């Protein structure tokens, strides 16, 4: 970072935050929900950036974390009456954490491709379990439930409106972002990046690489689970489609398109992808993935540093 950009950064941050906060006030209904969804997927993208961008581990397992967060929240909202927001978050995070422990334990011993394939397989294991265990998970049809109230026990309790839901989610996502930013810029974060750059050397220096990787997976899983909880709250349903590895694939797309290793990049990537999908599907209906897939593949070849990396290079010139 260049000197003096720190102030510039915070100004930019405030501007973007203000714009996002103002969104539901100025946009028509469809786009209001859309803006909220971008935030949720952005959080998912950020969580996977910890692994892909910072530690250099391409994970296809994020759908498992996301899905378990979703189903965990569903479990809370269905089993405890009246549906409690904070309980949903708790259950969701715990669910995601359990999956994260599994993945962390098994997968961090493996390098590169084997790690990616294993995370893919894990994601599919959970998909199969959720899909076939109809009594508990609702199988193919998933679960529906009612939206919890925005409540702080003892102080107030009110229904969510589109605006307040958006601001709540914005709040969670922003806090997550600031937290993740803190973590990635800390010594811990720098070790992760060292692992990405040159794992054998980092190990040789004396860092217990496996432990760092495990913590990275846990962190990543938790925030992905949080995204799942938010999605469940916003949409009031949980479905196995979200555990299918395609979601993980889309997450990876966000990262690559936006620029891995920047935290902000993947969020931009998610927004870009979703807008692209929205726009393209007007013309191509459900075949939007054909041109979008082509664009993605071309970006992998020609612009691997993502949009953000590309812009950064332009600005530096």
């Amino acid at each position: 970072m260049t000197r003096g950009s720190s102030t510039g950064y915070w100004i930019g941050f405030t501007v973007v935050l203000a714009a996002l906060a103002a969104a539901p006030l100025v946009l028509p209904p469809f786009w209001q929900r859309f803006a909220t969804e971008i935030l949720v997927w952005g959080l998912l993208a950020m969580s996977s950036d910890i692994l892909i961008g910072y530690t250099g581990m391409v994970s296809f397992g994020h759908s498992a974390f996301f899905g378990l967060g979703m189903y965990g929240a569903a479990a809370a909202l269905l089993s405890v009456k009246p549906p409690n927001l904070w309980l949903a978050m708790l259950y969701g995070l715990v669910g995601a954490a359990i999956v994260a422990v599994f993945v962390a334990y098994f997968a961090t011993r493996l390098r590169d491709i084997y790690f990616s394939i294993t995370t893919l397989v894990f994601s599919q294991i959970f998909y199969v379990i959720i899909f076939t265990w109809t009594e508990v998970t609702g199988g193919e049809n998933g679960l529906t439930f009612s939206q919890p109230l925005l409540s702080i026990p003892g102080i107030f309790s009110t229904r969510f409106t589109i605006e307040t839901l958006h601001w709540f989610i914005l709040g969670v996502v922003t806090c997550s972002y600031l937290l993740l930013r803190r973590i990635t810029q800390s010594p811990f974060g720098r070790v992760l990046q060292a692992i990405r750059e040159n794992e054998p050397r980092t190990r040789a220096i004396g860092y217990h690489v496996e432990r760092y990787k495990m913590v990275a997976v846990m962190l990543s899983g938790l925030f992905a689970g949080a995204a799942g909880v938010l999605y469940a709250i916003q949409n009031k349903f949980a479905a196995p489609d979200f555990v299918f590895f395609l979601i993980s694939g889309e997450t990876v797309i966000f990262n690559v398109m936006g620029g891995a290793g920047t935290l902000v990049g993947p969020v931009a990537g998610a927004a870009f992808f979703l807008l692209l999908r929205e726009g393209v599907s007007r013309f191509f209906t459900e075949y939007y993935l054909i041109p979008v897939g082509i664009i993605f593949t071309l970006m992998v070849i020609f612009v691997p540093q993502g949009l953000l990396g590309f812009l950064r290079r332009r600005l530096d010139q």
Partner: protein
Amino acid sequence: MSVGIPLDQIAIQTVNGIVNGMILALVASGLTLIFGIMDVVNFAHGDLVMLGGFTGASTLALTGNFWLALLVAALTIAVLGAALQASTLRPLLGRDPLTTILATFGMSLVLQKYAIWQWGPSARSLKEPITGQFTLFYLQYPWYRVATAVLAAAIIGGLYAFLKYGRYGIWIRATTQDRIMAQAMGIPVPIVHTVVFAIGASMAAASGVLFGPLGGVTQNMGADFTLRAFIVVVVGGMGNLGGSIMASIFISLLEAYASLVVSPAQAVIVSFMALILTLLFRPTGLFVPTPK
């Protein structure tokens, strides 16, 4: 729950396992060949199986000849594979393998949606060319299944012979071992890569057609095959042709036996377990001799 599983059911599942294993072996050999020579983990391999199946189904509907459909599918997808490799993967030569996973993942998305666009959302079935059954342990077993296993074995055998003898087999093996020196000897490595990808693609397509009468041709069979092929290639040892074949049969037998106890959708977890155990204890592959 019943006292035990009747012997003839176990026997049937054994044969089923071997038949499915041979089809999977056909898919996995292509995948491992591609990985061995150019370090590409082809995420879209299963989609080539699917496209082969659809192309075969269309050709069959048009001509009524199953074997012609098999040939047309194999050739068409070979050309498609060559085109994909030349346009998308050749520029990525030398970049890290994760980039190729992403690129082939992008390809996979496009191919899947293209199939829906071209053939619609409903599944196709292929009528088997050999009808009739024979008696196997008190039950009737279709000839076609046996024929499939034999044909798959023949194709793989053909591939093996091609690699072992003949000038181009030497080129392929040399390029797989040392791409740089192969170039220094005048072997046109970029073309060899494209041809090998085309061969792998055509084998995948053939599997799709052969599998058609057994399980139908569906839009999501691609993901299924890709996942299973990955598992087989890892369990068998990446780049190891013989290993993939043994692993294919091993995994298919496991699943066949498991489906006696649980539903087929859940039987696939057995394969996942095999993968994870392999990665934990014998990461170079179950069927690879332990490196000295």
